[in-house]
């Protein structure tokens, strides 16, 4: 029997506000353990939370960018459970009145457009981190991350394949980056996803029983987890088993998911309205102001690249998939006036090196200005493509200005006719046969002579100029 996948995703994104959601501690990643915290985010007796207004602004931005309705009245609730990384033993989140609801994101898979519904976006606080001693002597807690603001973005069960899940996540990540509310670094945990997955025979309308896989922190892991869980559920059903509603942990190293807890064992979070905080009441003018401050979103930017720069749709889609690529591209184009060449460099050499070094677009080590300079060096004939590639690699490695590299290494193309005449004369003297061939009408012989001159100039001679001098000198003979 053929089965259809049904997936809903819950994505947690850390907001890139300067301070935490309920206190003034920094949200900066890393830092020595327990140095980014205070009595409030560590839940000391008697302290009270005060909501960071930026968190509301960023969440509303995310809601508007994903076509959500923004609640004029919403509230915060306590989600109660015991765990050492949660110092108050409750997480302040939103239960029945989230800030944003009923939105959608459009994705494209294999040229087919699809709309994925968003159930809701709500704000909440992050927990700390447990550090397990590798010799099993105990567990330590780092509270630096406690109280870092998060938005949880819950999709409708509209996703039908691993590719759609990937496209949805990529599009969501691009949107969040574009509007500047999250840096979406999966390896630092600022973007995390839980996968709700069920399968059903093709054609059946009712959903199957779903499982939830937690803690997936790379796109690859998500894809593998979806594929793995699909197979597991299919095998289970084909052998007459039943799917149990449960939470499973995906082990990306072993490529299998392991049951964590069943529905019966599920926490009773005893949600109730957080009495230390007042309801969030927003008026139309506030929401309109945020709406008008939204930047151009990936979809619109892609269309503009096709129209304004004449890029192929594929290239435009890739360049706009990351705000970092797109911003980098535009800045380089502005300074070099050669969109096609800049696009080729980014799509080619830049993406290749980033992939090799497992780096993110945000990690590009040199400014867009350098790429623009490189393109200009080629366009002005000062270097050729072979040299340009070498300079590009050097630029990536050393973060040096390409013009400086050219100067330091003395690899600039020689345009000086005086310097080249000597080389041409030397080549002509050394190759009397070719000169004779040329004189007897074999014009092809000039190609060989140009090659010899290039060799003599160690690749630095400008071939056009060499060609011109050669012809002049041959006329004289």
């Amino acid at each position, binding site marked *: 029997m053929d089965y259809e996948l049904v997936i809903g995703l819950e994505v947690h994104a850390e907001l890139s506000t300067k301070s935490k959601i309920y206190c003034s501690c920094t949200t900066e990643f890393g830092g020595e353990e327990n140095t980014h915290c205070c*009595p409030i985010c560590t839940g*000391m*007796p008697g302290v*009270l939370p*005060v909501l960071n207004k930026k968190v509301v602004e960023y969440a509303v931005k995310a809601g508007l960018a994903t076509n959500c309705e923004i609640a004029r009245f919403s509230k915060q609730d306590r989600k109660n459970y015991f765990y*050492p990384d949660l*110092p108050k*033993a409750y997480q302040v989140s939103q239960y029945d009145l989230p800030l944003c609801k009923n939105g959608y994101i459009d994705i494209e898979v294999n040229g087919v457009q699809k709309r994925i519904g968003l159930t809701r976006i709500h704000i909440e606080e992050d927990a700390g981190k447990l550090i397990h001693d590798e010799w099993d002597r105990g567990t330590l*807690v780092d509270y630096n991350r406690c109280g870092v603001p998060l938005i949880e973005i819950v999709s409708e069960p509209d996703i039908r394949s691993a590719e759609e899940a990937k496209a949805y996540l990529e599009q969501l990540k691009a949107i969040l980056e574009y509007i500047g509310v999250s840096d979406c670094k999966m390896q630092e945990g600022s973007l995390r996803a839980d996968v709700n997955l069920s399968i059903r025979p093709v054609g059946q309308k009712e959903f199957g029983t779903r499982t939830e896989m937690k803690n997936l922190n790379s796109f690859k892991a998500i894809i593998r987890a979806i594929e793995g869980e699909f197979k597991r559920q299919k095998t289970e059903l084909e052998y007459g088993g039943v799917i149990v509603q449960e939470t499973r942990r995906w082990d990306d190293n072993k490529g299998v998911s392991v049951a964590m807890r069943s529905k019966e064992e599920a926490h009773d979070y005893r949600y109730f309205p957080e*009495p230390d905080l007042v309801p969030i009441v927003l008026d139309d003018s506030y929401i309109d102001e945020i709406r008008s401050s939204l930047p151009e979103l990936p979809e619109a930017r892609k269309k503009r690249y096709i129209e304004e720069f004449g890029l192929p749709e594929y290239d435009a889609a890739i360049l706009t998939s990351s705000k970092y690529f797109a911003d980098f591209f535009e800045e380089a184009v502005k300074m070099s006036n050669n969109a096609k060449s800049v696009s080729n460099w980014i799509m080619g050499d830049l993406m290749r090196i980033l992939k090799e070094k497992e780096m993110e677009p945000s990690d590009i080590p040199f400014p867009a200005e350098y790429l623009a300079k490189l393109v200009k060096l080629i366009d002005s004939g000062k270097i050729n493509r072979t040299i340009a590639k070498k300079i590009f690699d050097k630029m990536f490695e050393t973060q040096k200005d390409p013009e400086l590299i050219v100067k330091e290494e003395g690899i600039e193309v020689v345009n000086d006719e005086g310097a080249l005449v000597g080389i041409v004369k030397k080549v002509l003297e050394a190759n009397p046969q070719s000169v004779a061939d040329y004189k007897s009408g074999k014009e092809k012989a000039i190609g060989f002579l140009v090659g010899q001159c290039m060799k003599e100039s160690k690749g630095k001679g400008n071939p056009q100029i060499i060609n011109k001098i050669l012809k002049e000198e041959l006329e004289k003979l």
Partner: protein
Amino acid sequence: MNSGGRIVELFELTAHELKDLLNNKKASAVEITQSVLDRIQNVEEKVGSYITVCKDEALNRAKAVQEKIDKGESISLLGGIPMALKDNICTEGVKTTCASNMLNNFIPPYNATVAKKLYEADTVLVGKLNLDEFAMGGSTENSYFKKTCNPWDLERVPGGSSGGSAACVAAGEAVFALGSDTGGSIRQPASFCGVVGLKPTYGSISRYGLVAFASSLDQIGPLTKDVTDCALVMNAICGHDPMDSTSINSGYPDFTKALINDVKGMKIGIPKEYLHGEGLNSEVKNAVINAVEVLKKLGAECEEFSLPITEYAIPAYYIISSAEASSNLARYDGVKYGYRAEKFTDLLDLYKQSRSEGFGTEVKRRIMLGTYALSSGYYDAYYKKALQVRTLIKNGFDEAFSKYDLVLGPTAPSTAYKIGEKIDDPLEMYLGDIFTVSVNIAGLPGLVVPCGFDSNKLPIGLQLIGKPLDESTLIRVGYTFEQNTEYHKLRAKI
């Protein structure tokens, strides 16, 4: 000071009387603090108000204040006045225990906003006061550390949960104290100990640094020897605090402006359900009726009216307060600070053992009650219903205040009872909150002033309930009552 042929000690005086002595250089701040410390030395063993006494710090602070006075610097109206705080109000560097084994060694690295304000007003912190563990109880018998005795009869309870605050003011062990009131915890002990106690409007005093019991009901307030001191302390601690999201951001009046001896034309409503309900001790009832007669003679218009659903206030209160408490007290898990069990097998066991050993019986009872009320499947039947009752109670008061300037009634059904008398009957104990919890549920201010004594010479307190942010009317009526009666001048003899 000489009064009626008897030498009056400094510790017996009110803050405004001491201020006059300081101004006239008839007493120094150090002498005043020393007098209070001596008083503690003499009676504390019998009364047991304090968990911590900060003797050296208090004297140092008093010296510093006196230096300011000597230099001619201006100090606030409460400058140099010795005071004490309920031990659930955080004080930087001074142990704050909540009378619990759980926090028996907790020294906060921060001050509650009220502590900060009182320090800034140059008051002198004498120590931290006993209470029912985490403010849960009405007799101060639920303290992990000690029993506090009523200064009027040492075999009786001082009331609670701010029993230490009321007893210390009644015994002259501090000139004034701060308590907290979640369901009557300032007003009932004020009534039992014959002092003035005010539970201010919810949101008018910052809760930052008050160890939470029930966040939507808790409110800090003063316990003083008279209404004038109450107004002075309110001026010092009231006001918007950006650290507390529930703090009301509005202008607050100068409460001493309300110290006016005049209630002519004031409209006062007395809920029938309060005065004629079952369980109200007849001596308390008579004292309240007498107080009404006093106010009537002074020109107030008093009448009885019906305040509906009074009978649901207690169940609603115990559901809401316990639900919030179950969550507020979850952080005491033995992981970060406070009590940790010595023996445990794993994480779950660490939680279980630490909480079993760290909390007392009443606290555990409330945590279980609240956890149950919030559990899935019961939420609608209990918590949600209680919130609906809360709205109805608020509406009832709104309606009353459309007719009356304030509402008057008894504070507690009885006077102070014997230590141990009710400790094994929590339900009986809970019913003692019948006249006070509605005020918290509706977020209103409630002032208690002494209005008589029963046949055992135990004090009785009159409760005045006002509109939100209308403490001024309560202070005015309380002050007028005080100016025309002598109850507040009597001191307990220990």
